């Protein structure tokens, strides 16, 4: 009987050699006359163990990792096809503590199923949410999303149900669902993992959104840095179309839903929803004034629901298991689970899906295992390039939208980037300003000009004497306040957060070259 072996096709696993491993296993199996079926799954999100090879046994899947092509002959020698002992053996995959302690709802199938197989998706509970939605009225679907307490996972954390309701109530002959797959923040990769590891869940979520607001057309706006995700989505869309889950009559319901992938152009600002819409319309990605809200006047001037990948991918389970099931995870006004991405200088980087409420320290120490370099942790940036730098004294902050806002931070897309004590926080502050200057869409002055002046002021601070430094710090703080108060969108309005947090918590790093020479 053939043995099923899983070798991830996830972009990060490939970046560590998964393709060569899959080939080596196929070659070695042929050479030894073993009957092996290789499935290319997504990643389990334990990236320090990638490429993670799994073998299907009578007692479930067992894991080996990190496997390089050169390890493959010895794995066969050790009879890994029957869970044999080997230096890289990790035991049953589900028992690995990192995975075992998670609460995977949105990521329930990622790393488990074959992302190209619609049958596999359905065998693992896929399309049950859509089946329920097809029996419900628009308003009931919207109500379920409202009751679940699902808030946008792309950054702004706006309640998805309210956005959907606004769009539903806007009369129009054509409406759109747009998926924001621009995933621009450093330290984030959960959208990518969904699209590569379980693309059908996103397609199902978008289809349900289409039914909910009576939109017949959807677009996935995908960042150009994700060619692997593009391939996975195109294959999945084709399979869903062929099986009647997309098209003129979704599952024979008479209701149409068509889906298209559009590639972005590598501009960070196009993650902002209105500039994304401009880009989809074929224009420069410049931010639009609000109102009107996109839900009322969005893509091509029509009512449009625009949601992040993880937001939309969380919808099927809400419909399938019920709003209460999802809402019962979480804390306060942060309901459900958040896929947190551990990145930067950590031993065990990867994806951790948990109900809201765990602390940053639990994530970094218990899951992340401390710094990869073994040196002391010095700063953590949560929420991408516009997120504040958090000092070690604040690591007990729970992962919840309100708690983060209370310390002047934001959860954003759930990316956690850890730095050890070799980091130069003045350089990080300068980088944040420079990033804003490079990525500014140019529409408003505080952001377009302010960020360039900001870089210059930081340079003067670092070059000058103590006297100069104080004068320029006053100037820099003033400039930051102008950007916060006067910018049209969060790029200019939040770029000051990493800068100010670096000044507040890591002031010693701003002692300029001239001061140091004087000591």
């Amino acid at each position, binding site marked *: 009987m053939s043995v099923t072996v899983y070798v991830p096709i996830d972009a990060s696993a490939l*970046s560590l050699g998964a393709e060569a491993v899959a080939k080596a296993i196929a070659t070695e199996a042929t050479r030894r006359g073993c009957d092996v079926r290789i499935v290319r799954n997504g990643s389990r999100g334990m990236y320090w163990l990638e490429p993670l090879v799994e073998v299907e046994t009578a007692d479930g899947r067992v894991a080996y990792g990190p496997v390089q092509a050169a390890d493959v002959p010895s794995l066969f020698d050790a009879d890994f096809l029957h869970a044999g002992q080997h230096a890289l053996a990790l035991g049953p995959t589900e028992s690995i503590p990192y995975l075992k302690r998670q609460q995977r709802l949105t990521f329930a199938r990622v790393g488990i199923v074959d992302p190209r197989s619609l049958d596999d998706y359905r065998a693992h509970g896929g399309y049950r949410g859509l089946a329920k939605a097809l029996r419900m009225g628009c308003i009931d679907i919207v109500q379920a999303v409202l009751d679940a307490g699902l808030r946008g996972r792309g950054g702004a954390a706006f309640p998805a149900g309210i956005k959907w309701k606004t769009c539903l109530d806007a009369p129009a002959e054509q409406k759109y669902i747009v998926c924001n797959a621009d995933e*621009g923040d*450093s330290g984030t990769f959960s959208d990518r993992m969904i699209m590569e590891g379980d693309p059908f869940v996103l397609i199902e979520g978008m289809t349900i959104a289409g039914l909910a607001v009576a939109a017949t057309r959807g677009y996935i706006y995908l960042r150009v840095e994700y060619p692997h995700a593009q391939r996975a989505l195109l294959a999945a869309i084709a399979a869903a179309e062929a099986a009647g889950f997309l098209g003129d009559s979704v599952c024979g319901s008479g209701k149409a839903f068509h889906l298209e992938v559009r590639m972005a152009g590598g501009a960070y600002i196009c993650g902002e929803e209105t500039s994304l819409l401009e*880009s989809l319309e074929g224009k420069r990605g410049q931010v639009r004034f609000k109102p009107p809200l996109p839900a009322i006047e969005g893509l091509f001037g029509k009512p449009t629901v625009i949601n992040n990948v993880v937001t939309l991918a969380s919808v099927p389970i809400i419909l399938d298991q019920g709003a209460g099931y999802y809402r019962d995870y979480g804390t306060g006004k942060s309901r459900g689970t958040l896929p947190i991405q551990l990145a930067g*200088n950590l031993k065990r980087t990867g994806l951790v899906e948990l109900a809201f409420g765990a602390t940053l320290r639990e994530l970094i120490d218990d899951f992340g295992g401390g710094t990869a370099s073994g040196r002391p942790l010095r700063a953590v940036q949560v929420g991408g390039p516009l997120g504040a730098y958090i000092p070690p004294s604040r690591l007990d902050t729970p992962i919840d939208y309100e708690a983060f806002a209370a310390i002047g931070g934001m959860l954003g897309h759930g990316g956690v*980037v850890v730095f050890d004590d070799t980091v130069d926080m003045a350089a990080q502050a300068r980088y944040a300003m420079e990033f804003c200057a490079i990525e500014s869409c140019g529409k408003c002055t505080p952001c377009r000009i302010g960020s360039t002046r900001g870089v210059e002021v930081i340079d003067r601070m670092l070059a000058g004497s103590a006297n100069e430094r104080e004068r320029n710090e006053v100037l820099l703080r003033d400039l930051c306040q102008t950007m916060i108060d006067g910018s049209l969108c969060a790029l200019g309005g939040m770029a000051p957060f990493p800068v100010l947090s670096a000044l507040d918590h890591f002031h010693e790093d701003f002692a300029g070259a001239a001061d140091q020479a004087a000591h």
Partner: protein
Amino acid sequence: MKRAIDITVLPEIPENIRTAVLEVTTRLKAMPGALLPVLHGVQGALGYVPADAVPLIARELNLSRADVHGVVSFYHFFRQQPAGRHLIYLCRAESCQAMGAVTLEKHIRGRLAIDFHQTTADGAYTLEPVYCLGNCACSPAMMIDGDLKGRMTPERFDAWLDAEAT
């Protein structure tokens, strides 16, 4: 309705560029908001979006030349000059910085003797900065000719370069 293609009002365009652009625009211009897909198509075919192509794209999509130029120059991904034979995207974002991207960047610039946005004299390598490849769990990251590479080090980069050169 098919309309006869009249290029007499356009400046001289090298034949290969004209053929490539028309192939792409004919295929895609009916799409709503077709400009980005068209630019991707042209860059896919030619490796860049030549200045010569702009008037033709504009005419085919019923846009002004300024519209098209404005879009080409807004997005980091679209090139106005051809790249070298190998296109190297190096991640400069925070997670990669936390794992030594700055040192790696210095090494690569030194080794290839070029800065960002430049191509080596022999036309072999072009170096571009990128803000995050979504490979932050395996920082520092780079992408070479569409191949993603994780946990890069100066040594691993040199090994790749030496293997390419032989």
